Structures are given as structure tokens and as C-alpha cells.
């Protein structure tokens, strides 16, 4: 079973998306902000895919994934942004920081799961 780390400051998003992922057969690790997520990564939590929000209080999603990419175990792990932000310049920043893809909220369950399948292939 693949493990997905979900990072979002909205408790509602964490609950709804984690339900979808669990139902689709994934194990889900949740973090309500980038620092919590980073702590889990530093503890070498096994994760196959990271899905993170962009705009979060404290560390934003781009700085977060830059930190994650410095950790040897997660250099090649796929990273998806799930965010309300659609701006091209932010996508370019995310790509440069090591993101694998970008989904604009609200994404349907089918869009989310199809994209996950693609990046985990």
C-alpha cells in the first residue's frame, strides 16, 4: 500500500481528501502545516507521494518542498500541489523547487486520483 502525506492548514480539506485517498486504497499521513510535515519527513516517515497546499500560515508550500528536497530520502519522491492558486509564476516557482505537478482547488475526486496514479506510476 502506497503512503501519501497530505499537508493543508484546513482541517476540512485534511479530513475530506484523506477520506478520498483512504477509500482509494492509500495510507494517509496528515499534517496541518509545513513544519509538522517537515518533522514527519525528518523522522523518516515512509512516504511515496507528498500532496501539499501552497498558502499556509508560517512556512509556505514552496519553501516547504525546498526543505523536503534537501532530505536524502525524499529527493525523488513525487510532490503535488493542491491549491486555490492558479498563477503561472507560482507554478513555475513550484516546478523549480522540485514539484511534480499542480492541481487547482476544487479538484474532483476523479481528477485527484487520476493525477496521483500518473505520478506514482
Amino acid at each position, binding site marked *: 500500500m502506497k503512503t501519501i502525506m497530505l499537508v*493543508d492548514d*484546513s*482541517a*476540512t*480539506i485534511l*479530513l*475530506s*481528501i484523506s*477520506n*478520498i485517498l483512504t*477509500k*482509494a486504497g492509500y495510507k494517509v499521513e496528515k499534517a496541518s502545516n509545513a513544519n509538522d510535515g517537515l518533522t514527519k519527513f525528518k523522522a523518516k516517515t515512509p512516504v511515496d507521494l507528498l500532496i501539499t497546499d*501552497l*498558502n499556509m500560515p508560517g512556512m509556505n508550500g514552496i519553501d516547504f518542498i525546498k526543505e523536503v528536497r534537501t532530505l536524502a530520502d525524499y529527493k525523488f519522491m513525487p510532490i503535488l500541489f493542491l*491549491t*486555490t*492558486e*492558479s*498563477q*503561472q*509564476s507560482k*507554478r513555475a516557482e*513550484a*516546478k523549480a523547487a522540485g*514539484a*511534480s*505537478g*499542480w*492541481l*487547482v*482547488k*476544487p*479538484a*474532483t*475526486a*476523479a*481528477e*485527484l486520483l487520476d*493525477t496521483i496514479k*500518473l*505520478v506514482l506510476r
Partner: protein
Amino acid sequence: MGVMQARHRAALEVAQELDQVATFNNVVRGHLAVILAETEKASYDIVERLQTIWHDVSALSMNCLAEAKEKSVVSPDDAQHQKVMLQAVDQSHEQLDNLLMETMASIQFQDVTRQQIEAVIDGLGRLDTHAAMLSERLKHMDEPNFVFQPLSQHLEEMFLGYVTSAQRSSHTRSLNPTEEGDEFTDSADRPAQSAGPRPKIELF
């Protein structure tokens, strides 16, 4: 009373009114904060209820399947009937799963709305600042070196702070009512320089 005195008095009265803008905006911000908190809680509760329904329906469906499989089959007709029943239950279960999954996903609207309301709250804060500055200006009418941030600059900063294309489109439409807003127009690329629609999903 001289003309200058009358003007000065009027300016002070206007300044006092402008000082009340922050109070007024605090009331509006309070309403918005309540809306934010209530919709966040309501959305979370909806997801929790959906989760419960999902678990219950899944358990019920599994029980039905298990019971049907345990029933003894005495004739080929029974076997065929049982097969059709099992397929129907299985199919209904899958359809319900998909429906509940999409309903769960649709709750993301709350996160989008939250960020849009936060932008309105930010805009009210900017109005406070601007009103306070105008008040100071009127109280110090004779100060020749008074410098202030124009409202247009606040608008520019607000635009840069938006997180959704809908906010940018709405902003652009408000400033240029005759222009059509583009749902996927990006702000960094202002409308005139837009590089076209951005896909909702992009793999790098």
C-alpha cells in the same frame, strides 16, 4: 466666522468621521469572521457526517454480500438469481462510493471561499489605513510635505495578494466593466499580457 475658519472646521468634522471608519470596518470584519468560523465548522461537520454514512453503507453492503454468498443454492435458477443480485449490490456500492467521493471533494469550495473572504478582510484593513491617513491629512491641512499612499497602490497590492483566478477576474472586471474577465487569467500576467488559459491540472 471667516471662510478659512469654516473650511478648517469642516475639515476637522470630516476627519472625525473618517476616524470612525475603522470602527465601522471592525463591525463588518466581525461579521465576516463569524461567517468564516461558521462555514468552516459546518463544512467539517458535513464531511464527518459523510464519513459516517460512507462507513455505515460500506459495512451494510459488505454484510449483504456476505449473507447472499452464504445462502445455499438449490437450483441453477437460484444460482443465476444470486449472481445477478450480487452484481447489483456490488454495482450500487461502487456508484455510491463514487458519489460520496465526489461529494467529499466538492467540500473544497469552502477553502476557496475562505481565502476569498480573507481577501475582503484585507481590503477592509486597507480602507482603515487609508481613512486614517486622510483624517491625518485633514487635521494637518497646512503641512506641505504630507506624503500618503494612494488608494490605487492599495488596489495594486490587493491584486498581487489574490490566490484565485476568480478574484483576479472580478477585480479586473470591476476596474474595467466593459472588458470580459478571463477565468484563468493570471495576475502576474495582467489581462493585456495574458499568455492564455492555465490548465487546472499540470504535470511538470
